[in-house]
C-alpha cells in the first residue's frame, strides 16, 4: 500500500518482476481478464495519468506541450487533410491514449529509440518512428521533423516514460500487442467472416466501414480508403491477430479464442486498402522487396474467394501522392 502511494505521487513505477509486486497492483484486474502476468525479470512501468500531470512539479509551459501531444494523439483528425488522410486517430489502435499494455503502449519507444528497425533497415529516432505511423497507419503526410506538432507528440511519449530506465536490459512487459500462439488450423476467410458478423459488425458495420456521426468517427473503418494502408503494421496478420485478441471486441479483451483472432484478422486483411507508400509500381516486386514485412500480409496474394489480386492498384486513398517526401535513408558513410 505504501508503494502504491509512492506510485501515485511520482506518476510512474518501475520495478523488476519478482521484486515487491505491489508495483503492479494497479494491473491486477487485467490479469483477471486474461492478460499475462509479468514474468521474472521483466520491466513493468505504469505510465503517469493526466491527473499526475496536473500534480507534477513541471513547468506550466511543458505541461501545455504534453497536453497538446495527448490531444493530438486522441484527436488526430484535427490534422485531417494536412497530415492525416484517413479516418484514424492514433488512439484508434493505441488504447487509453497509448498507456495500455498489450495495446502498443508508447513509453517503450521513448526509452528504446533510437534503435534499428527491420522495417526500413536503419536506425530510427523517435521522430522517425512517428513519421512511420503517419505514413502508413494514418495514410498521411507526416509533420516535419522538429515541428510543433512533432514536438508535442514526442514530448507526450517521453512524459509517459517518466521514471523508466533508458535502454533497459530487461524485456518489456506488455510491449506491442503481445503475441497469439500460431493457430492449429490455417487462418480461414469463411470462418473469419463468421467471427466478424458475430463479434465485430455491430460496431465496425458489415461492410467494414465503421460508423461516423456528425462527421466524427465513432467506430473506425477496418478496410477501404478510410483505413490504414498496405504498409501499416496492422495489415500483418500476426500483428492484427494479437491486437484483436488483446483489445477487441471493445471492452471484452481476450474473449475470442486464438483461432478466432487469427481467422478474423485474416478476413479483415483480405480486403482492399490504400497502396503501400513503398510501392514500386509492381505489387509482386514490392512484396518481394519487403518480404520481411509482407511475408505476414496478404498484399500481392490472390484472394481465394474471388481470385482478386490484393494491392494491385494505384489507389492512394484520399491523398494525391504515394510516398511522403519526408521519408529518408541514412548510411553514416
Amino acid at each position, binding site marked *: 500500500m505504501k508503494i502504491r502511494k509512492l506510485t501515485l505521487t511520482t506518476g510512474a513505477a518501475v520495478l523488476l518482476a519478482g521484486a515487491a509486486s505491489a508495483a503492479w497492483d494497479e494491473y491486477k484486474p487485467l490479469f483477471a481478464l486474461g492478460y499475462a502476468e509479468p514474468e521474472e525479470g521483466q520491466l513493468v512501468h505504469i505510465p503517469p495519468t493526466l491527473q499526475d500531470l496536473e500534480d507534477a512539479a513541471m513547468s506550466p509551459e511543458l505541461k501545455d506541450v504534453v497536453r497538446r501531444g495527448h490531444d493530438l494523439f486522441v484527436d488526430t483528425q484535427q490534422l485531417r487533410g494536412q497530415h492525416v488522410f484517413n479516418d484514424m486517430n492514433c488512439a484508434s489502435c493505441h488504447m487509453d491514449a497509448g498507456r495500455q499494455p498489450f495495446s502498443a503502449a508508447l513509453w517503450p519507444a521513448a526509452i528504446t529509440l533510437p534503435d534499428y528497425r527491420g522495417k526500413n533497415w536503419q536506425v530510427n529516432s523517435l521522430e522517425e518512428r512517428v513519421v512511420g505511423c503517419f505514413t502508413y497507419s494514418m495514410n498521411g503526410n507526416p509533420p516535419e521533423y522538429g515541428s510543433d506538432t512533432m514536438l508535442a507528440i514526442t514530448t507526450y511519449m517521453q512524459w509517459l516514460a517518466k521514471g523508466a530506465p533508458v535502454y533497459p536490459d530487461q524485456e518489456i512487459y506488455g510491449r506491442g500487442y503481445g503475441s497469439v500462439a500460431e493457430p492449429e488450423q490455417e487462418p480461414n476467410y469463411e470462418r473469419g467472416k463468421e467471427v466478424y458478423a*458475430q463479434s465485430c459488425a455491430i460496431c465496425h458495420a458489415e461492410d467494414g466501414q465503421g460508423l461516423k456521426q456528425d462527421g466524427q468517427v465513432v467506430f473506425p473503418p477496418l478496410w477501404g480508403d478510410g483505413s490504414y494502408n498496405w504498409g501499416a503494421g496492422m495489415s500483418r496478420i500476426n500483428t492484427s491477430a494479437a491486437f484483436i485478441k488483446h483489445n477487441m471486441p471493445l471492452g471484452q479483451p481476450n474473449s475470442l479464442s486464438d483461432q478466432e483472432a487469427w481467422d478474423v484478422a485474416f478476413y479483415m486483411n483480405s480486403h482492399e486498402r490504400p497502396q503501400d507508400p513503398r510501392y514500386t509500381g509492381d505489387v509482386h516486386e514490392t512484396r518481394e522487396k519487403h518480404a520481411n514485412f509482407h511475408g505476414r500480409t496478404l498484399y500481392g496474394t490472390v484472394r481465394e474467394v474471388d481470385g482478386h489480386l490484393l494491392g494491385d492498384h494505384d489507389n492512394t486513398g484520399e491523398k494525391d501522392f504515394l510516398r511522403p517526401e519526408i521519408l529518408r535513408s541514412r548510411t553514416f558513410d
Partner: protein
Amino acid sequence: MKKKQLAGGLALLLGLGLAGTPALAVDGLEGDPQRGEGLTQTCVSCHQADGSGQNVPGGESWPRLAGLSAGYIARQLKDYQEGRRQNSTMAAFANMLDDQAVADVAAYYAQLPVTQAEGGDDVDDATLARGEELARRGDWNQYIVSCQSCHGPGNAGAGDVFPGIASQHAGYIAGQLRQWQEGERDNDPQGLMAAIAKRMSDEDIRAVSAWLARQRVTSAQGDTE
C-alpha cells in the same frame, strides 16, 4: 445510409449470432410520428408529454425517451413484450402496442428534442471529476472503457444500438447499471454493456450517473447521419 447499414448488420447479427434472439420484428415497418403521438396518452403519466420522464430519487425513475433513436426505442419495446427485458411496470404498457404502434411511438419520441435531466446534484466536485473521467476517458486499469467510445461523441448516442445517456436521469442510469450488475437486465447485444457495468464500483456508478445527468445535449448531436 450508414444507419441503415448498421441496422441491417444488427438484424443479421441477431438472426445469426445470438441464438434465441429473433430478428427485429419491427424492422422494415415505417414509423409515423404523428400516429405515434396519438398512441402516447397512456405513456405521458410517467414519460411526460415532452418525453422527459422523471427522476424519482429512491424509487424507480422514468427514463427520458425524447431524442433516443427510433431503432433503440423499438427494440426495447419488443424486448419488454417478449420478456428479454423484464420490468413489471413497463411490460403491461409495452404489451398494449402492436408492431406498427411500436414503430410509430418510436418514431414519435425519436424526433422530440432532448430534454434536460434531473438528479446528480448531491455530489461533490471530486465525484463529478471521477464521473467525467469514466464517461470521457475510462479507467483502463479496471478495464472500464470510456462510455463515449460506445455511446458516441458527447455520450449523445451512436446509431440504433448505443442509446444516448448524456442528459438521462441520474436515478435511471444508476438503476440500469445496477440491474446489469445483478443480471436483471441482460438484453444488451453481445453482453457489451454488462461487461462494463460489472467492473464498476458503487461509487463509480454514483459518479458517472451524476456527471451524465448534468450534461446538456443539443438536438443536432443526437441526430444520426
